[in-house]
C-alpha cells in the first residue's frame, strides 16, 4: 500500500469507529452496519472506479460511499438521520438498498441505459455472499455478460448473512448437480393450442 492508501485506510477506520461511538451513545435512531478489515481490498477496487461511475451498494455501505467521494460530513448526517441502510446520493451516482441483492437489477438497468446512450460511465454493484447465491444475482450476471453491459459485480464474502453462515445454510456438499437437459427444438404445435382456428359454441 502507498502512503496515500494508508491515509485513506486510516480515514475509513476512523470514520466507522466514530459512527460506532455515536451509535453506542444512542444518537442514531436506526440500525447501522459497520465495516471492518476489508479496507485494503476496497481501496484497490475503488482505484478503478471513476467518480462519474455508478455505484450500487448494500445495507453496509459506509466504506463504499466514502471511497466514491461522498463527504464524511454528509454521510455522517445521513447516518444520524437514520438512513444508514439506504444511503443514496444521486449527485454522486450512489445508491444502496436495505433489501439483500435489491440493488442488483437496478444497477443492471442503469448499465443498459448507459450502453444505449454510448456513455463512458461504468456501473459497479456490490453484493454479499448470500445475495450472490440468489436467483436475481445470477440472472443479472448472465444478462450482463450476454449483452456486454458496462457493469462489474463485486462479491463481498464475509461468510455470513446477518448471522446465518452462508455455506451452512446452502449446504456444503461438493457433489455435482444432477441436471438432465435435452433439446427438442422442432414441434408441430405452437406455444399453446393446436395451431388451428377453433370455434367454440
Amino acid at each position, binding site marked *: 500500500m502507498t502512503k496515500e492508501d494508508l491515509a485513506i485506510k486510516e480515514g475509513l477506520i476512523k470514520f466507522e469507529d466514530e459512527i460506532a461511538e455515536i451509535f453506542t451513545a444512542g444518537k442514531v435512531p436506526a440500525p447501522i452496519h459497520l465495516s471492518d478489515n476489508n479496507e485494503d481490498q476496497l481501496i484497490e477496487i475503488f482505484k478503478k472506479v471513476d467518480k462519474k461511475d455508478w455505484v450500487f451498494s448494500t445495507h453496509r455501505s459506509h466504506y463504499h460511499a466514502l471511497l466514491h467521494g461522498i463527504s464524511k460530513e454528509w454521510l455522517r448526517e445521513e447516518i444520524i438521520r437514520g438512513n444508514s441502510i439506504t444511503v*443514496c446520493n*444521486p449527485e454522486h451516482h450512489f445508491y444502496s438498498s436495505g433489501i439483500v441483492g435489491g440493488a442488483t437489477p*437496478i444497477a*443492471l*438497468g442503469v448499465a443498459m441505459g448507459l450502453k444505449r446512450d454510448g456513455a463512458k460511465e461504468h456501473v459497479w454493484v456490490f453484493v454479499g455472499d448470500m445475495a450472490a447465491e440468489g436467483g436475481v444475482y445470477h440472472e443479472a450476471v448472465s444478462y450482463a455478460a450476454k449483452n456486454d453491459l458496462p457493469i462489474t459485480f463485486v462479491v463481498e464474502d464475509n461468510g455470513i448473512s446477518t448471522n446465518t453462515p452462508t455455506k451452512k445454510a446452502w449446504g456444503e456438499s461438493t457433489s455435482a448437480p444432477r441436471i438432465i437437459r435435452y433439446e427438442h427444438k422442432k414441434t408441430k404445435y405452437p406455444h399453446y393450442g393446436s395451431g388451428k382456428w377453433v370455434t367454440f359454441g
Partner: protein
Amino acid sequence: MEKMEKKELKYKNELTRATDYLAKNPKTIFLGQSVVYPGNSIFKTLENVPANQKIEMPVFEETQMGMCIGLALAGYIPVSIYPRFNFLLLAMNQLVNHLDKLPVITRGKVRPRVIIRTAIGSERPLFPGVQHSGDYTDAFKALGLTNIDIVRLDEPDQIFVAYKKALERADGKSTVLIEYGDYYNEK
C-alpha cells in the same frame, strides 16, 4: 330481414393508439415478453412501436422491474410489460421496496418513473386457469403505495387519458395500467 348491428370495438384500438402515443417520446422503451416476438394479445398493440424502442426480455419478472427502475434512473421512460397480472406478482419486491420507496429514501431527489402494463387474463371462450386469470387491483391498492398509481382500465374511454397521464404526469409517480384481455373482443 333484420339488419345485424355490428358493435364497434374500441378497447384494443384505444390501447394501440395510446401505445403509439407513448412511443412518440424517444425516451420510452418497451420491455417484456412477446414485445418483439408474437405470443399474446398485447403484442398486437405494439406493432407500430419502432424496433429500437422494444426489447424482448427473458422470463425474469423481478429482474425486469429492477432493470426498468435503473433505466429510469439513467433517463429513460421504461414501459414494463407483464402479459398476465399473475406474472407481475413475481416483480413485487422491486415494485414495493424500490420503485415506490426510492423517492422516500432520497427525499424526493429521485423519482424513477416506470409505466407498468399488465392484463387480467382473458376468460372467454377459454378459461386459462387460476394462475393466469387473477385480478389483484384491489390488493395492489391496499398496499398503500405512495409513489405508484394503480389504474384499472374498465372502459375504452379511460385508456388514452390514463396512458397520457402516466407519461406526462408532473408528480413523477409511476403508474400500473391494468387491462382486461376479454375486452379486446368485447368492448
